[in-house]
């Protein structure tokens, strides 16, 4: 199972030369609260920049037929 997840991660991470990194990425560890310092960084948030995400979603909603995925709510507009 882990090998499949790692292979999928390989496709998403930049280049399969990062196989080792992908393998490390999906190693599941029990983290203690005091070990979360890296996870607390801005760039480690699943939505690291809500303003940028909001802006991009408006652009792509206006110009493409697909939308959604990240959440629900937030209001619509007549751009599409």
């Amino acid at each position, binding site marked *: 199972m882990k090998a499949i997840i790692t292979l999928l991660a390989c496709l*998403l991470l930049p280049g399969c030369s990062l196989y080792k990194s992908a393998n490390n990425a999906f190693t599941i560890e029990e983290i203690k609260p005091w070990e*979360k310092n890296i996870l607390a*960084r801005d760039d480690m948030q699943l939505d690291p920049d809500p303003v940028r995400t909001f802006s991009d979603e408006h652009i792509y909603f206006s110009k493409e037929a697909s939308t*959604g995925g990240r959440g629900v*709510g937030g209001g*619509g507009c007549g751009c599409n």
Partner: protein
Amino acid sequence: MNNIKSKLSIATCTLLSGTQVQAADTADNSWDLNSSLLYYSEADDRVSVTKAIAFLTGDLSSEDSISVNLVLDTMSGATPTGAVKSSSSSVTSFTGASGASSSIAGGASVDRVNFSDTRMGVALTWAHELKRTHKISYGGSLSVEKDYQSYGASVNYSIESDNRLNTYTMGFAGTFDQIYRKTDGTPEPLSNVEDNNILSDGERYTYDFILGMSKVFNKKTVGQLNYTMSYSDGYHTDPYKVISQVRLVEDTNSGVFTWTELERYFESRPDSRFRHSIFTSMAHQYGGTGETVQTAYRLYTDDWGITSHTFDLTHRTPLSESSYLEPHFRYSIQSAADFFRPSIIDDGTTPVILPEYASADNRLDETTGITIGLEYGMKLGGGHLKARGEYINWQHAKAEYDETTAMVMQVSYQKLFD
């Protein structure tokens, strides 16, 4: 600091669209202001948008926080109508996007029209911690344009595991939209433009549902998986878009056959839409210098026949203790809607039978999109300053306007007030 504690809880907040609601573990009354100015400009003097954004998030108590999102868009430029770029036409007038009326001098076709509009949007979210690992948030939103109004409400519930490494989220949202043209209601779908058959305003109800999970894999990796479903019922047609009826006509002088527009109709779309999407993303930090890679993938499908795949990748490289550089790459590919067609063909021998639904809107065409961008960020004045530029290109397979190219410039400043 409340925001830091919130980050440590990881990912309870990403399921609200465009809203990062901070958890409320302590009541130190800190407020986070995130402001931004964006300029979007399409090549060939097409659409340009200036967008001003302000997100304010703060604590009301040890269990409650609110966020207020404000947005102001100023839009102008020219947009394709869906009509063919014909050199000759028997169509003589057309009311374009946002009410801009155009005359077709000398029989020339108007395949795009100028428009201008202003949009104001407000969204309010209240998040409440029911107990240590259970949170609920309520949202309301309003968006107003000269030819569109949208009202929305949402509720999201999230539960963290006892070790706070997994978060499960469920959410519902309802939206009511009113659609009309600036000068009147909505045109009768597939009626001839010259007949000017105008009906009442369009109304649409949309119901959204999300089921999500986020997980901390290890000290350097976090990921999420969402399933979203959306059903909308009501008016889905674009009241400004048209579709041409064309015939191959021989020029009596040159003998050359050219496609000539004989009639022009307002487009028609189904009155409901059922959408599904699966969205997954992850953030991983690696290397000795603290580089971070963020990846995302979305699979989307709906009952209009559209399926899309969207990949997104950012890679942040620290330049120093207080600055970074972040390239961005996005790739998307979508299939065309079942009822998309660039025009309605008149073979000149059999009477044209109009289809039930037809649209020549290039956004419903088979489309490939590529985005390449770069962001620079630095600490400044106790806050964070970010500037980015992006190039976007969409290639449409069959639409009359088969390419859209845009540049995006955005400057943002975020500051925490204790």
